[in-house]
């Protein structure tokens, strides 16, 4: 895997990079599966669940990206996601899932509008406003859920009646044969089989939509004038202003889009994942979304990867009754850290290398001595990973230069 990373560093071509990453991930997973003897690591069920868990996280992260690329830190994503779940539930049970989606978008937009007004026009501190949004979003959803759902059949004070599901599809002809290939346990081939069968098993149309949004974001923000201007507002708003860009407008667009995306994430939770609005179903995913955005270096591709990794860990730990699969993941993590430590050594960053090496060694020795990972510890993996990235990779991270700085037109530096 180290070799793979080295190759990755030396090639500039995006296509080759992607290929190399994919191969190395598959290879490593395969090795770990064999070594730890855990078939479930790459089974259809796991992959399918991982995808399902990754979508809301990814959408939240994408929402955070749109806001921060415009220079606004939005930690109120959780509140906007909650509003999304409520909107989806409220309109969804009455008029069907598609209207539910619209409902989510509407509520997310409203929440984002309040946040935008406070931070962009009034210049209120973004962290404080975001915290307020989380309180408001939760309270609002709780209040209106009680009023509207309490006396409905199938509903209750904290839950909506069920929402008709959205269409999903499965690649039936391939699905079962692929599962058999996976079960046979060939190196690498099984992994590929597992992945393909998992992705196309009960694939929700919302997942496809989410993937489309990621691709669209990548295109819009990096290949159009609109996207250039929006990003410029997050990099150096005064420079953008001096060239005639309407800074306030683009900040608003970024924040409103972030609200819509977070709400869509909530809609996924309500419509596709559980089929109802339920209080507390967001479970902190708004914050995990922020983590994936940082993990992904404020780029859509990276955010998607981060969401995939977190979703995968989440899925694995949900399906893992006796902690054996999670233990395998620890091994996986240790190997990754080890490879990164070698990298740090080559870059002469000794402090980082030492730290990563120690952690890696500790994890490997832990793996060898134990047979299972307590599930509570597994739950914190995404957060720990983010902290590690922040602590040791801050040089590699490139947040937008003017991120989080309130902007007043005409105020010179």
């Amino acid at each position, binding site marked *: 895997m180290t070799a793979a990373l080295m190759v990755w560093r030396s090639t500039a071509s995006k296509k080759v990079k992607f290929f190399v990453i994919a191969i190395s991930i598959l290879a490593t997973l395969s090795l770990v599966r064999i070594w730890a003897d855990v078939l479930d690591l790459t089974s259809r069920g796991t992959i399918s669940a991982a995808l399902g868990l990754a979508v809301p996280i990814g959408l939240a992260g994408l929402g955070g990206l749109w806001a921060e690329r415009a220079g606004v830190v939005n930690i109120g994503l959780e509140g906007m996601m909650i509003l999304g779940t409520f909107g989806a539930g409220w309109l969804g049970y009455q008029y069907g899932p598609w209207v539910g989606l619209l409902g989510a978008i509407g509520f997310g937009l409203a929440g984002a509008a309040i946040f935008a007004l406070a931070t962009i026009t009034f210049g209120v501190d973004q962290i404080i406003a975001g915290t307020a949004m989380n309180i408001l979003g939760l309270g609002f959803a709780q209040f209106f859920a009680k009023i509207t759902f309490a006396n409905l059949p199938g509903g209750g004070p904290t839950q909506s009646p069920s929402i008709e599901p959205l269409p999903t599809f499965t690649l039936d002809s391939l699905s079962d044969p692929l599962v058999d290939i996976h079960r046979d346990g060939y190196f690498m081939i099984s992994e590929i089989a597992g992945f393909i069968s998992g992705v196309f098993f009960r694939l929700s149309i919302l997942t496809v939509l989410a993937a489309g949004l990621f691709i669209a974001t990548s295109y819009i923000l990096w290949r*159009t004038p609109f996207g*250039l201007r929006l990003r*410029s507002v997050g990099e150096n708003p005064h*420079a953008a202003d001096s060239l005639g860009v309407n800074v306030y407008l683009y900040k608003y667009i970024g924040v409103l889009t972030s609200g819509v995306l977070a709400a869509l994430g909530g809609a996924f939770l309500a419509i596709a994942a559980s089929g109802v609005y339920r209080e507390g179903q967001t479970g902190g995913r708004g914050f995990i979304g922020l983590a994936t955005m940082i993990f992904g270096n404020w780029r859509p591709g990276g955010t998607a990867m981060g969401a995939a990794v977190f979703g995968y860990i989440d899925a694995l730990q949900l399906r893992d009754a006796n902690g054996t699969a999670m233990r395998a993941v620890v091994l996986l993590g240790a190997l990754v850290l080890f490879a990164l430590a070698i990298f740090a050594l080559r870059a002469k960053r000794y402090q980082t290398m030492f730290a990563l090496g120690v952690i890696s060694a500790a994890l490997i020795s832990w793996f060898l001595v134990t047979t299972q990972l307590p599930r509570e510890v597994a739950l914190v993996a995404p957060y720990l990973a983010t902290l590690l990235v922040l602590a040791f990779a801050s040089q590699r991270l490139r947040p937008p*230069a003017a991120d989080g700085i309130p902007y007043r037109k005409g105020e010179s*530096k």
Partner: protein
Amino acid sequence: MVAARRKILLAVQLQGIWKRFPGVIANSDINLKVESGTVHAIVGENGAGKSTLMKILYGMQKADEGTISVNGTEIVFNSPSDAIDVGIGMVHQHFMLADNFTVLENVVLGSEPRKAGSLDFTAARNKIVEISTNYGLDIDPDALVGDLGVGDRQRVEILKVLYRGARILILDEPTAVLVPHEVDELFEALNGLKAEGITIMFISHKLDEVLEIADEITVIRRGTTVATLNLKTQQVTAEELAELMVGSELPTPETRGSTVTDKVILSVSGLTATNKDGKDEISDLSFEIHAGEILGIAGVEGNGQSELVEAIMGTKAATGKVVINGVDVSELGTRKRRELGVAYIPEDRSRLALLLDAPLWENRMLGHQTQIPNAKGFRLTPKLAREDAKRIISEFDVRTPSVDVLASALSGGNQQKFIIGREMSGEPILLVASHPTRGVDVGAQAAIWDELRAAREKGLAVLLISADLDELIGMSDSIKVILRGKFVADADPATVTPQELGNAMTGAVKAGKQ
């Protein structure tokens, strides 16, 4: 100035420009003629009115009176877009660039070429390469701006305005951030632009460079045009220029007895500080100040005075040795240095010397939190601090209703008086004062000078930075001139001539007297 009657195309003509701000006249009756395809320099001291004039020309400000003509046609600017439309492009002193963007992205922002809704990167790249080659700017459109050096970034700024069709460039203090070889590269680029017919207006106070590159020079002093010189038809020496900028009179110092003793209070050797681009802000400075001595530092602002002060106070990292009253403080932090008895009057009082949102009596403690009367051990003693604040207010004539008033409510002059009163309390042994009487009315200024002289008689050592020649000549026992981070001349306030001082300050004469 004999003007032969031939048809000269004037790219820019300003006639009778006046601009007033509350309390100050920034521009009075400015007349400026810039020939097409030439490099026209505008020189003057800081505060002479150059920036205001350029803002008017670029449409960021509107003149109260007077006319602007571009290429022969009279025109009115309501915003920078109007100026851009007639081909004027401004390259600001502080670059407006996004470090995380490529050159291409920075240049086309706001004027992006499009192809079916998306950004036409190819067209942009081609145009940039074309401009870069035509004008000899040598820029890679796909380079990340954050990776570029200062000289390259400046050329990106120039590229930005050329991309938008500018034929008249205004450069605001372009060489302020460049090292000598970058200056050469810039001048090469400017000559290349001139060869293609671009008109360049160049604001500066560095006379040696101006003489090197300009075809014509307009000198501005105290808001008005003092002279226009055509270097093609006239021979101008730097000394003459300096005199025009600075004025031919200098105040005569008061005769008084010397109080300079033998005891060295401040000793600095080999002090060097570099900024994050690797450029030396001050290099290898060495000097001594004795008890009872005032050392004045003369120089045009931005030549390293602030960095020198920060390095001595410990708020800026620097190499070299600083010894205060026999104690080597080179490795010590700001608090330890101040506790040795160092008083500090910084030039930017609202950022460095005051807590604007705190009442005056708390500001009495700022900088001296560990000393009487502000604190005893870890406890503050507000009662004593308040008493002392009252004393300062009466002794230094600070106009304020009480010691509970927020610092932000005081006028600038009164704030300065309070700060000086605070710093002079507690019997300091060394005073580092940067423009101490800036913003203070004349009467208070004289009173402050008296205080300083009295303290000096008692043995206070003073490092005095000032742009006010009255103050510098009148107060100092000796003067050093600083230029581009190095000491270039020593001067005796009793005997120095205006030309000598002006020359040294502006670099008209490169070597200094020892």
